[in-house]
């Protein structure tokens, strides 16, 4: 039975965001379902981060709407329910790992053992008392990720969370994203690395502020007759550039 009744967690309609003179997002509509990991893929500068900021509700929109869990993105009622990891780790460099988590935990009003759970989830329990300044880049981004996990948000939005990480750790993180999705959360992960696509349940391909495709990896490859997502991406771009009468 096809379940069309599952309510999407995110609904983006005709979104336009102008940043300076550039249309960073240019008339984009998409939706994100609960219980799956959605990959937002596209080259650097294609507008991924702007779209993500719009979903989280920290971006000034030019036009269009973004709805999250049935509410306008950024609504105060969503502030407990959405976890967000920015590209640069947004944690306090001069506090220890545990202090960072405790602080954000108190802001969110989650119980103290929740910080412990999130530390374990990103495998940082061993360095809990180290000052963030002294950690490696990968460890710092995991501290930032742990903060986003506090309170088990219904929507988890991650902007390039796996850049520069050890392959073993990357695999473990993707496993964790899927575990979170299996538990019912919607997970949106952006990446400019196309081979991360195969780890996603659904893909949103973006280029120049527009959506190229919204599909499962399997259907995308089948539809374009390609073997990997990079080739599928090229096929779609080239197809779009061909003159209309030839493609018709």
């Amino acid at each position, binding site marked *: 039975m096809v379940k069309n009744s599952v309510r999407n967690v995110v609904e983006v309609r005709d979104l336009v965001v102008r940043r300076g003179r550039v249309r960073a997002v240019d008339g984009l509509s998409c939706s994100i379902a609960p219980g799956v990991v959605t990959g937002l893929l596209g080259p650097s500068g294609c507008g991924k981060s702007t779209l993500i900021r719009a979903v989280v509700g920290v971006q000034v929109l030019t036009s269009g709407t973004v709805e999250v869990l049935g509410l306008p993105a950024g609504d105060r009622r969503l502030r407990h329910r959405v976890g967000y990891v920015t590209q640069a780790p*947004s944690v306090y460099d001069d506090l220890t790992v545990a202090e960072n988590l405790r602080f954000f935990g108190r802001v969110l009003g989650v119980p103290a053992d929740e910080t412990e759970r999130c530390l374990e989830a990103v495998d940082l329990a061993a360095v809990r008392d180290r*000052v963030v300044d002294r950690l490696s880049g990968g460890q710092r981004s995991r501290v930032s990720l742990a903060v986003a996990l506090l309170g088990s948000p219904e929507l988890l939005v991650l902007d390039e969370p796996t850049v520069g990480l050890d392959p073993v750790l990357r695999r473990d993180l993707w496993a964790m994203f899927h575990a979170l999705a299996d538990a019912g959360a919607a997970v949106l992960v952006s990446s400019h690395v196309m081979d991360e696509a195969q780890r996603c349940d659904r893909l949103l391909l973006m280029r120049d502020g527009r959506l190229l495709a919204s599909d499962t990896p399997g259907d995308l490859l089948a539809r374009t007759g390609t073997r990997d997502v990079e080739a599928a991406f090229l096929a779609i771009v080239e197809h779009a550039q061909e003159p209309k009468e030839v493609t018709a």
Partner: protein
Amino acid sequence: MSPRITLAVAARVLTQLRRDRRTLAMLLVLPCLVLALLWWMFDAGGAPLAGGFDALGPPLLALIPFIVMFLVTSVTTLRERSSGTLERLLAMPTGKGDVLVGYALAFGAVATVQSALAVLLCWAVLGLDVSGPVWMLVVVAVADAVLGTALGLFVSAFARTEFQAVQFMPALVIPQILLCGLFLPRDAMPGVLEAISDVLPLSFAVDAMSGVSKAGGGAGLGGVAGSVWGDLAVVVGFVLAGLLLGAATLRRRTA
């Protein structure tokens, strides 16, 4: 705003300061060293010069916490803005008031210790003449420190780098020091400058501090002259205005 979050922010700022031992030591020791230097210049050699330490000590007790907290706050909040932690906090259930009041509480607490040490040194060791109650000097100093914090929070919105933030000192703080009555009595200034000095917050801060110390400073409510309470009320008004302006610069959504 919620007390839980406000206190969490204040506690976090204090933890960060505690970790930065050198800054903390400088915050507490440097004001005392500067005041001791002033005393040495004017009073140590016997006959006090030009009114001496009794005339210049109180204005400095007002200036130092203001300047120090202005600098510390503008740099710390700029860091918070540029590191993305402010955006993260504001995407959480944090109110703008939580951030502002949390910072004001934390730096107010540091200023209390800083001012108590400086006042104790001036009064008990360097022999500053204080006709009003000594605790009132600490109260005024803390109000000045929070004034510096409020102004620092506000200007950090207009700086992109820490270099720029520090440059707000000559832009906003030094003119106030020149016009606050330390170098020239305010009523002896050219009319226009006197009028300007009459509306600058630091002028009221210095007047309040001098008012407690000079003769007659002990006659009024709680042993404090009425004019001092008036000046203090104006300083507190500027603090509130500064925090409101600061709140306007905290944006949940940015372009």
